[in-house]
């Protein structure tokens, strides 16, 4: 297996790891977003709590939760490693850089957006994952009730919306970038991949951002 380790330590290998873990996290977000969107049924959280109950107790899902954390940590580790590596490649910085002339700002800021997402994720996990998995809070009230409680704080709502904006831009570049890294650049598929990526990034981040906003303004009960 030394050949694999060697390949994964190359500049291309680090990018491959980034793409694979990124696409894995992208697939997770579909489930997370879809399940949470059941709050918009406005049924007092019945469907949402059923889903949350299933996700919290099903052994396959609980095993995948470990895989998910593994994938997330690998994505973070690999991202930090790439960022540190890449920084060293230009020891003397340019005095003038006109980055906007040749690339999108968010494509050049994946490390920064990722760091913002990590900070957001720590707050987010503290709010809901810690509550539902590591405390006996669920004995007294449901995860839906916890959402209602958490999103009464306007600062929390703003932090969540900013987190969703960071996520949207991260995905806007990350989705199509992952396919390019996997070598999937083809006149037949690339335009479709880019369109799907843009729609995915906008829909996922907008639906997520709508959740704290809807709770805060009592649009759902």
């Amino acid at each position, binding site marked *: 297996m030394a050949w694999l380790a060697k390949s994964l330590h190359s500049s*291309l290998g680090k990018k491959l790891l980034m793409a694979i873990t990124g696409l894995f996290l992208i697939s997770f977000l579909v489930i997370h977003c879809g399940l949470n969107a059941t709050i918009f049924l406005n049924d007092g959280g019945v469907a949402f709590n059923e889903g949350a109950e299933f996700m919290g107790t099903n052994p396959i899902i609980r095993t995948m939760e470990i895989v998910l954390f593994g994938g997330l940590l690998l994505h973070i580790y690999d991202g930090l490693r790439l960022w540190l590596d*890449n920084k060293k490649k230009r020891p003397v910085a340019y005095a003038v850089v006109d980055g906007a002339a040749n*690339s999108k700002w968010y494509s050049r800021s994946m490390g920064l957006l990722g760091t913002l997402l990590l900070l957001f994720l720590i707050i987010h996990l503290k709010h809901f994952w810690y509550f539902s998995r590591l405390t006996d809070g669920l004995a007294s009230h449901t995860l839906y009730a916890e959402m209602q409680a958490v999103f009464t704080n306007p600062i929390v709502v703003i932090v969540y919306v900013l987190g969703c904006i960071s996520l949207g831009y991260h995905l806007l570049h990350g989705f199509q*970038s992952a396919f*390019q*890294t996997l*070598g999937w650049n083809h006149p037949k598929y690339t335009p479709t991949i880019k369109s799907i990526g843009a729609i995915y990034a906008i829909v996922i981040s907008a639906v997520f951002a709508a959740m704290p906003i809807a709770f805060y303004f009592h649009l759902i009960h």
Partner: protein
Amino acid sequence: MEGHLNLTLKIWRQKNANTAGKFETYQVSGISTDMSFLEMIDVLNNRLIEEGDDPVAFDHDCREGICGMCSMYINGRPHGPNRGVTTCQLHMRSFQDGETITVEPWRASAFPVIKDLVVNRSSFDRIIAAGGFVSVNTGNAQDANNLPIAKDDADEAFAAAACIGCGACVAACKNASAMLFTSAKISQLALLPQGKAEASKRAQAMVAQMDEEGFGACSNTGACEAECPKGISLENIARMNREYFSATFSSK
């Protein structure tokens, strides 16, 4: 004056690779808008020589946009504000009278500064030497039509071969990555039957050399493609990834 510019130039001056450089400011006046950027530097250098100063060292050779020597990072972009051109094909009509123009060398640890705006790009040569070749039998050349090659493949290989190795991709990349260059040099051979014999080793060897030279990884920002004077496509990087990983997983 119509057709003539007065400009302020902020030019990076550096004695050699081991000393730190700094910007020097120069005024040039009466620059014709028909001059190329390099001719404008020639005017400045003539004056510096007459005044007994050290002229600005810069690379140039063909001055017709095909050799790739004229590496200058002008106002935050490799080869200046226009797309699809080298510095020698950049004309002073692209600038405004009274403008301040900042000129820097390519900045990358794999491109050490030799003097002023001249950088050492021999790292590119070593990447090519690592695998950018095909083995050819000695003896009489076979008939050219013995190897059927689809026109589309030939065209694509030719488009990749248009790379002049100028290093603008590295200069433009926020990671100082040489992937556009390396992928073009892999693609021009990978697309043709003549390149198949070494295919399982070529991408591996060239990527390993690229990493060893100290070039960065790819963030897929597309800055390299946008700044490439020869329009080398990002599709080449995807092809390099395919070549590299298919060799990783299938070679013995």
